[in-house]
């Protein structure tokens, strides 16, 4: 599959699961099959609110075999004014939303002997996408969902189809009553841990696992990746005497290209060295794998495909 740009989706159905949780089913606007989305994958939605455009990532809860729709579960936090609040309040069935093709930074290991899944709150969502596959494969797994008292019912309902005969437990007493170290220390060799939830839970799971001697390659934390973007800045192309605004979700290379100027590039991923341009003034936030540590420290060049300015202005010899 070669992704040809964003995927337009139609909101097919919105289901209220609890006062704060809604499940959205999104189908391909122009019909046909959606790209296969694996367990653990997320999509980035572009949400056009009344006063701003937001980009939010959501884990898919629909199984990979499901090519006619993507499903996400979204929690609405009181007082929030972000993308999730907009989805809860401003989106109706029939509306059209754009999504980037699915990305998976939280895949299931193919060689684990056992899978230990720990979810905190809405962090249950990627785990829900794992369960059909683990069950279909007859894989050995154990799931612990940490929950506030009022959410126990909804998590029970979501997990019920997978529960018979499985080690699935919901801990309604929150983090405090949850024996993380106890669970980790009684796992057999070859177990992989997957944890998704609030950052403190993920960090605690990772550090507890490390303290108990788990190899880092067997501990997986949910991630939507480092944001490709960053703070906006101005790039000045000194030889051409022009000034370009680089937006939050744009790379420097994309911003130059958007003006119609062909800038050098090849891999577009910080590896090949092709897009290197000399820096005259300003501080670079280096994100590439091409420049050496000394070159980076010298602040005399920028790889436009991935790196950005740390300062408000970056003057480039181009």
């Amino acid at each position, binding site marked *: *599959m070669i992704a040809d740009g964003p995927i337009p989706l139609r909101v097919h159905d919105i289901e209220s699961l609890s006062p704060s949780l809604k499940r959205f089913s999104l189908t391909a606007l122009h019909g046909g099959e959606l790209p296969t*989305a694996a367990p653990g*994958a997320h999509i980035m939605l572009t949400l056009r609110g009344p006063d701003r455009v937001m980009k939010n990532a959501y884990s898919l809860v629909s199984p990979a075999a499901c090519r006619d729709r993507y499903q996400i579960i979204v929690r609405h936090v009181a007082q929030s004014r972000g993308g999730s609040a907009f989805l809860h309040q401003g989106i109706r069935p029939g509306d059209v939303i754009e999504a980037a093709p699915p990305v998976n930074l939280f*895949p299931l290991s193919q060689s684990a002997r056992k899978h230990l899944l720990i979810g905190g709150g809405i962090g249950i969502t990627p785990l829900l996408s794992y369960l059909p596959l683990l069950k279909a494969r007859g894989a050995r797994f154990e799931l612990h969902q940490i929950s506030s008292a009022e959410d126990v019912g909804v998590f029970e309902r979501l997990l019920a189809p997978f529960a018979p005969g499985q080690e699935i437990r919901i801990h309604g007493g929150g983090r405090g009553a949850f024996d993380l170290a106890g669970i980790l220390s009684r796992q057999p060799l070859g177990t992989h841990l997957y944890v998704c939830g609030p950052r403190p839970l993920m960090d605690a799971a990772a550090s507890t696992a490390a303290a108990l001697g788990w*190899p880092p390659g067997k501990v997986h934390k949910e991630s939507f990746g480092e944001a490709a973007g960053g703070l906006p800045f101005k790039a000045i192309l000194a030889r051409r005497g022009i000034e370009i605004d680089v937006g939050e979700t744009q790379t420097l290379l994309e911003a130059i290209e958007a003006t119609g100027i062909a800038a050098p590039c090849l*891999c577009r991923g910080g590896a090949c060295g092709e897009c290197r341009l000399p820096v005259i003034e300003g501080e670079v936030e280096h994100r590439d794998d091409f420049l050496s540590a000394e070159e980076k420290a010298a602040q005399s060049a920028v790889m436009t495909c991935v790196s950005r300015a740390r300062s408000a202005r970056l003057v480039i010899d181009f």
Partner: protein
Amino acid sequence: MTLQFKPNETFRSDFAYGKSDADLLRFPFPFPEDAYMYSVNIEPHVRGGPTAAFAHVFDIDEHYVAECRERALVLAEDPKRCQVLPHMEMAEWDTLELIMESLAADYPDHFSLTKAGDLWTWVNRPLGIQQSFTFGEAHTLPYGPFEYITRQAQGDFTLQDQRDDNLYVDGGMVTTQADWSLEFNIGMTFHEWHGPVPLAHEKGVFDRALKYLLRLQYGRPVRRLNWTITINPRLDTSPENYPVWGPDRTTVTSENVGEKVHLRVELQTLFRLPRSNAILFGIRCYLASVADLARVPKWRRRLHRVLRDLHPEIQAYKGLPRYRQMVLDHLAPFDDGAPTSPGIQSDLDAL
């Protein structure tokens, strides 16, 4: 687009192989400038590029039917050319889905795929195959899903599992390879597999390539070209088969050098697979003789200059020294010293 296949071509013994004019002009000539050095020459695999070989997700050309037959011959002699470790089963189905869906979408005259839930029907007209099967159930196919579909594809494929921030070669269909062996490499890490390529390690090429590939995203495949030299249009130059092809190298003379010596180009593509998170590595091999390449003015000038000025260590690694001078003598009269345009396109519409 309807292709005229040449089903009677051979890549062994009598080497009944030739290129039509159109096939020569679509050749992915590997040198974008008049000099060559290793680099991380990876770019997004978008539809379209400097020659028609880049137009589709998987390129099919006039040699398709004959190459599939050659693959079947190699596998009959040596079934170990296709191996997949057991934990890669999900990646096998991912590969089958990707290749079937891509071929059906890109070449509707030749391939079709219909689905009724998990019941799929695949039609491959050039090979005369119609197969119904249940997606996800290997026993409904005559071979494992990876072997089944790569028997019907041009070029070699390997499957890389990603774990512990590395890539492991945990499967492959390898019958048209430049001198390397799946049997020897299976289970290896990225760096072990790339072994002793001179100069490339010092330049940090593999470290950067690995980091880049670990971040490879689904739906955003990448590609690069690699090249070497092969004597005769022989696809299977494996180490296992060395006794058969090794002696070819002694048969080059100044009379037959144009026809015997072939530039062997690999259009390498890398795809992130969705369910398994593995990487599918496609190694699509193209062969063009020096005489064929000499029909394209830009390419003959550039090939002459690249081989003339090639770093001695790279010459040795590519096995060139034995006949490099003969090739240079053959090409030198064609090189008038005129400048060449940047990029690999032929600059011709027809021959």
